[in-house]
């Protein structure tokens, strides 16, 4: 059941990405090119998403718990540590080079562009590398 609800929510998210233009790297790169062929569209994607989520989260979080599962899994870390600077800094460089962030890259898979087919496996490798590195550092700290 949860699987199918998640398929529907992923579909809604992905259709939103396509309609908004986020799944087109040319549009993303033009948004990032303020001093060139600037296309401000993506500011509205972010604005629309944050507007709905800002109100929606406030309504949802008045509940004691979600529909399934015992509690809300909200991030509890609030430190501004090296990882929350270094990670986004590295991610931003890749985003500026390729015009893809993780969601749009996955959604764009079905469009079959050769660039996307090269980007996604590299991205998954990078994700796995970061997870394994984080796990090994956590183990060192625990010892």
């Amino acid at each position, binding site marked *: 059941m949860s699987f199918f609800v998640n398929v529907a929510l992923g579909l809604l998210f992905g259709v939103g990405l396509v309609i*908004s233009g986020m799944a087109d790297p040319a549009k993303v790169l033009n948004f990032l090119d303020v001093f060139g062929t600037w296309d401000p569209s993506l500011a509205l994607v972010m604005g629309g998403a944050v507007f709905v989520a800002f109100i929606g989260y406030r309504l949802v979080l008045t509940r004691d718990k979600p529909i399934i599962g015992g509690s809300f899994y909200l991030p509890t870390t*609030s430190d501004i540590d090296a990882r929350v600077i270094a990670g986004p800094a590295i991610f931003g460089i890749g985003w500026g080079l390729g015009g893809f962030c993780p969601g749009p890259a996955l959604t764009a898979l079905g469009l079959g562009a050769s660039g996307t087919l090269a980007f996604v496996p590299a991205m998954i490798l*990078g994700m796995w590398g970061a997870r394994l590195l984080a796990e090994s550092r956590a183990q060192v700290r625990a010892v």
Partner: protein
Amino acid sequence: MTEFTPFASLVGGMMIGLSAVLLMLWEGRIAGISGIAGRLLPPYRDSAFLSRFGFIVGLVAAPLAIAVTTGEAIQQSVPSSIPLIMAAGLLVGFGSVWGNGCTSGHGVCGLSRLSTRSFVATAVFMATAFVTVFLVRHVIGG
């Protein structure tokens, strides 16, 4: 050049926000794509694999659903240099998981929750992305 699409972008953005809200309502999780995708890889720390897999299936199926329902071609232009795009993929994958979030987790969900950590993360990735595009297009390329 790409065309300024304020209406479509706003509507698409609101759908993304709605998906994030409904995921929180349904099972109490943040709709961060790097978190969802990154945790599909081992080691596994909880039992939400099937939920995450479902979300990614929906995400990947979205353009097919649009093609089937509207019959319209989806406009897209992906950088064609394979070494460049693979380097970009590695950086995006590593950086988003290392920093615990990307445009969706820190950007959409974190900003909506008024998380200071996400504000910092979003400011940092926006800044390095702007600088990267500036360097590529106007310093190296210009």
